[in-house]
């Protein structure tokens, strides 16, 4: 069982044991089972909080100050405990076995002559174990004393049906004069009857474009581009209207057989010339 290697750390348990619900007295203190009965020890195995817990209980059974326990005796007791668990075919969590291996190693090291010991010395390892047991014992005792205090709701009581204190929220509303007046303005603006007015625009009617284009075509000799029919120096807005009207006028003249249209490419300049009677 002795590890030939050098386990220098005291192994920590790797799994939490199920919480131990000990028979509770009013103080919440742990009821001590009869620890001198080996059979009882076996049955309690699920109640141990890991190997350190067992060691602490074993140490306490030496009935001396924890600072004066015999580590060798403790190791023997622990190993005996594990052996008996084996005989009973109880399945022990791995950490109990790891602790057993480590303690067996510690024991053999403690029994070796001092000159052959390595660093850290077995005495140091033993001391560390002892310090840990002291700390666990201190906390266990502190827990018991804490639980035994006069606890609110168990030993001392508050008022069971207090009236309660209430904080009432009172809202203070905030609004500025300007907000008020602006809001009214907006209500008025939103609901005022709306009249749509369309401004007059300069347009060239189809009629006037027709007159203009046919008149200009009459004096033209050759092909003319459509844009040349537009009034020069006109307002850009009027120009747009004139272009549209002149285009429709050109189509109309072509339809009437008075003019012909030509366009060399898509979106290219549109040309037109007068169609003399008999040309066709």
């Amino acid at each position, binding site marked *: 069982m002795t590890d030939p290697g050098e386990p220098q750390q005291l192994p920590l348990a790797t799994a939490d044991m199920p919480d131990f619900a000990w028979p509770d007295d009013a103080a919440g203190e742990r009821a001590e089972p009869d620890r001198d009965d080996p059979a009882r020890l076996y049955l309690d195995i699920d109640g141990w909080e890991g190997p350190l817990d067992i060691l602490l209980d074993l140490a306490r059974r030496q009935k001396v100050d924890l600072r004066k326990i015999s580590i060798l005796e403790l190791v023997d007791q622990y190993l005996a405990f594990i052996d008996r668990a084996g005989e009973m075919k109880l399945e022990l969590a791995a950490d109990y076995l790891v602790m057993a291996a480590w303690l067996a190693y510690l024991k053999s090291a403690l029994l070796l002559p001092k000159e052959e010991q390595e660093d850290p010395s077995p005495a140091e390892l033993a001391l560390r174990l002892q310090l840990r047991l002291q700390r666990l014992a201190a906390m266990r005792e502190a827990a018991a004393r804490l639980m035994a205090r006069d606890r609110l709701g168990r030993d001392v009581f508050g*008022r069971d*049906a207090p009236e309660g*204190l209430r904080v009432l929220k009172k809202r203070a509303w905030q609004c500025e*004069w300007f*907000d008020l*007046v602006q*809001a*009214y303005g907006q*209500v008025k603006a939103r609901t005022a009857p*709306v009249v749509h007015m369309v401004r007059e625009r300069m347009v060239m009617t189809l009629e006037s474009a027709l007159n203009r284009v046919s008149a200009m075509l009459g004096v033209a000799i050759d092909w003319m581009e459509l844009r040349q029919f537009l009034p020069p120096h006109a307002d850009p807005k009027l120009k747009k209207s004139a272009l549209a009207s002149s285009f429709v006028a050109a189509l109309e003249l072509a339809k009437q057989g008075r003019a012909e249209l030509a366009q060399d490419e898509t979106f290219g300049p549109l040309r037109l010339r007068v169609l003399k009677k008999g040309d066709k």
Partner: protein
Amino acid sequence: MSEPDDLVRAVEAVLFASERPLSREEIGEHLGGADVREALAELEETYRTRGVTLVKRGRLWHFQTAPDLAHLLRREREEVRRLSRAATECLAIVAYHEPVSRAEIESIRGVQTAKGTLDVLMEAGWVRIAGRRDVPGRPVIYATTPEFLTHFGLATRRELPGLAELRAAGLLDPVAEAMEREMDAHAEVASQSAESVEDDAMDGDTPSLDMGDQSA
């Protein structure tokens, strides 16, 4: 305070800790069948002048805070809140047109007005119910209060600016309002989307930062 005897102390404690009022017999049972008549009388007298008093209701005894101190158990805390847009409009209409019914307010605003809106104005103390209009249905009519004038620093309602003044101040310009609304909506959407973008970035960054921290 004179030292109470053990029975008085016990009765005091039992009554204090009880979740409900107790009869004399119940208290006695708690205390091993003791007769607690005198103890109750003594406690009643002891607590008579205190902030807590022992009272008997029917056959049942209990402690309660002294009635004259009940107001201390409630504490008021002011919470300043800005009036909503709808409430502000409502208030303005009441102020300009009072007395006015709810139906009239709605017809001026051009939208339905929630009942809660008028309640808020009444809670604020600026609007009051001024009676009923003498028409079929007898609708409730509303008017402003003196606190309204005080709050807005007005001597009389006539100090409210007239429509001409509002127009001069540009407050009747529908375009401005429409623009403002649009811009508000825009700003909201923009800030929301900005937030969501930031959130996304955070989501993506955070885990990797954490990982870095842990491995460090």
